[in-house]
């Protein structure tokens, strides 16, 4: 006959094991999903007006295409900022490697423009609202390795649920 205390600890350890296993499974599922399939990205700020609201949007982004194909012109991508590794801005790809890109350096101040060729392995990203956006015009073309994912849908605010608007250019 087992004593009541050993019975208690047996039960407790079994319950703890079950809970731990469940938590581990949930963690593994989330890890695989967010690293290989898709993830939620939060976007705020003025740089992507009118495509995204400056007051905040929740977006669904996917990581599948970045492993099998190069980004296309017009894709909206989540990148790791070359200036601050802790930030993940959302911008639109306007040029891919080999493209010749002309852009107005600072549209608020003057019409002066600059032309560059996008180097191999890089893309040129730009916010849709060019008057107030920190993008490849400031920090240069972005290596593919900094692209975290491609945006599919906006999921919040709810009234705007669905694919993002068309390419403005």
């Amino acid at each position, binding site marked *: 006959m087992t004593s009541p205390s050993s019975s208690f600890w047996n039960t407790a350890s079994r319950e703890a094991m079950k809970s731990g296993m469940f938590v581990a499974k949930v963690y593994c599922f989330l890890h695989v999903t967010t690293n290989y399939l898709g993830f939620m990205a939060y976007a705020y700020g003025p740089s992507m007006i009118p495509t995204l609201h400056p007051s905040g949007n929740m977006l669904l982004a996917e990581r599948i295409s970045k492993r099998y194909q190069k980004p296309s012109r017009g894709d909206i991508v989540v990148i790791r*900022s070359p*200036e601050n*590794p802790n930030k993940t801005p959302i911008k639109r790809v306007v040029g891919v490697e080999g493209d010749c890109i002309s852009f107005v350096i600072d549209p608020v101040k003057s019409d002066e423009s600059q032309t560059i060729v996008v180097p191999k*392995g890089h893309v040129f990203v730009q916010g849709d609202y060019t008057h107030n956006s920190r993008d490849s015009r400031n920090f240069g073309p972005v*290596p593919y*390795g*900094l692209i975290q994912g491609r945006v599919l849908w906006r999921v919040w605010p709810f009234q705007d649920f669905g694919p993002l608007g068309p390419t403005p250019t």
Partner: protein
Amino acid sequence: GPSMLPTLNLTGDVILAEHLSHRFGKIGLGDVVLVRSPRDPKRMVTKRILGLEGDRLTFSADPLVGDASVSVLVPKGHVWIQGDNLYASTDSRHFGPVPYSLIEGKALLRVWPPEYFGSLR
């Protein structure tokens, strides 16, 4: 390849790398790091960090040809990486400063071949 001779052998070494330092900003001058190549995201390169953001560096433009040198200022959020073998390395001298976020690991030890087991330096 030959870019990290004499630190790493031509015939291929196996090294132990860790993935935590760069997430906490602990990468420093002289560290050997694994970097996603800016030219080909399917490749990983192993180089040594010789400059951090804000540093000014001077390097030989092409050591095989002449003594001409070039000075650069490493921009914000970037690092300057070079292979130890200056004559046979494609690194920041060719593709420029590398964003910090392309760093994927820091090399700790060489574990193969066994007679060379130990710290990289």
